């Protein structure tokens, strides 16, 4: 069973929020889901993982500039934009 504290913690990590009622519901669902995947925890694997999906350095992208996208297209789906930038409420210097 995942504790309410743990649910709150992963909500924070995921940038999500939930009311107290929703929290209880989430606790239940997440615990069900966790139980479902818990077989992984108990599985017996001690093999070192080999890295199979590799690409040689020689096959990588060359350092040649290509045209960037026009600013309008970059911003076209932003819910709020100002001065050709994405805009959010003023943040305190962090």
């Amino acid at each position: 069973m995942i504790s309410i504290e743990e649910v709150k913690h992963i909500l924070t990590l995921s940038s999500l929020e939930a009311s107290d009622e929703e929290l209880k519901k989430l606790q239940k669902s997440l615990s069900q889901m966790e139980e479902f995947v818990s077989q992984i925890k108990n599985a017996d694997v001690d093999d070192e993982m080999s890295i199979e999906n590799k690409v040689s350095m020689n096959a990588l992208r060359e350092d040649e500039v290509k045209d960037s996208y026009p600013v309008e297209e970059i911003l076209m789906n932003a819910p709020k934009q100002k001065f050709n930038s994405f805009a959010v409420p003023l943040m305190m210097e962090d």
Partner: protein
Amino acid sequence: MKDYEVTIGLEVHAELKTNTKCFCSCKNEFGGEPNTHCCPVCVGMPGALPVINKKAVELTIKAGLCMGCDINDIAVFERKNYFYPDLSKAYQISQLVRPICLHGGVKLDSGKFIRLNRIHLEEDAGKLVHKSETVGTLIDYNRGGVPLIEMVSEPDMSSPEEALEFLGKLRENLIYADIAECKMQEGGMRCDVNVSIREKGQKEYGTKVEMKNINSFKAVERAIKFEVERQKDILENGGTVRQETRRWDDVLGESSSMRSKEDSKDYRYFPDPDILAIEIPRENVEKIRKELPLLPVERKEKYMGEFGLSLYDTNLLLSEKVYSNFFDECVKLYNKPKSIVNWIQSQVLSLIKDEEEKEIKISASNLTKIIEMLEKKEISQQDSRTLFAKCWEEDIDAKEFAKSSGMLSTLSENELEKIMDEVISENPKACEDFKTTPDKVMPFFIGQVMKKTKGKANSEVVRKYFTEKLK
């Protein structure tokens, strides 16, 4: 006050000198109108995928070789997940378990070796511009995706001076090897500092405090000094130093606790499934190693050892990569390092030492030709200066111009003798005076000969001739 030992570690980020960003082909360039160097990949658009830049990997390897690191056979990229407006995908592509470079380090002048833990490749975030209540904070992703190397030192430094020297040497190497420009004022190089103190004799390290927002060499020094004092105060008053991240304010000269944004963050690192592991063949590493230019430490040894230059001259040459590279180029063409460094010092530096952009406007070929002609007495001292100025301003060949302008006329022995005899016959009184006061009159004779030969005569030859002739 008790006696304390200080332990310092540095985490340095440098923007790589590539044409394009780390994971897309947008221009890697400082400045520009907001969001004009962007594409779906670097702004994290749905459906976009990273494509890694070969040059960024090569430069990281190069940096590792400069610092004596081991280069991993296989490098893996991981996602560092957190939410912040300047991070377009809500994760930064970085490296954790298998970075490109491991270990290595830098030797300080004192001989002390500061170890590196790793050098890895990652991408930069965008920029936040905090405007006003009405406008808010604006997000510009031009810088987002620019390739950075992160160089993490072991906590081997014990004073702000050592930290500065380490940072300086790191920076020098990166500049000399053409890996990064390290312009701190443009954010091209950034430094986070970790400081802890412990009572002298205590085995365990004290609590480590991390400091961010340090934007200049001076600030590194000030921040470390302040933090050491701050921690000392706490311990002296019986308190405990809290492990935290603090923000340095260089204007106020103090650090403040950063809000929980940084504290106990769980980045949930995992290997980025969009990026395959990169295999680094040994041949590639060796090729990069072969192409490494000599680094400042090695150049210093060569200039002072092999070339016999003074410490002063050496430091002058090494103060800017441009000077040193130019010097090296000249020496390759004309193997007279001492003459060359004199010219660079007296003529070249005087012209550009106050310039922001140090551009040497005379070619190594021209400069060495001028020096050679002067030393062979093919042109006069004065002419050499004129020629130098001309080559600085215009795109000409020194030798060609000397020929066509008549500077370059060689004097045969007969011609010189003829002229010297002329001087003798034209100045009978001087010849008389020479018998009694040769030292007084010799300069006059030499002067006369120089006038007639336009300075092309060899003064030693003249001296000898007159001495013989008028004995």
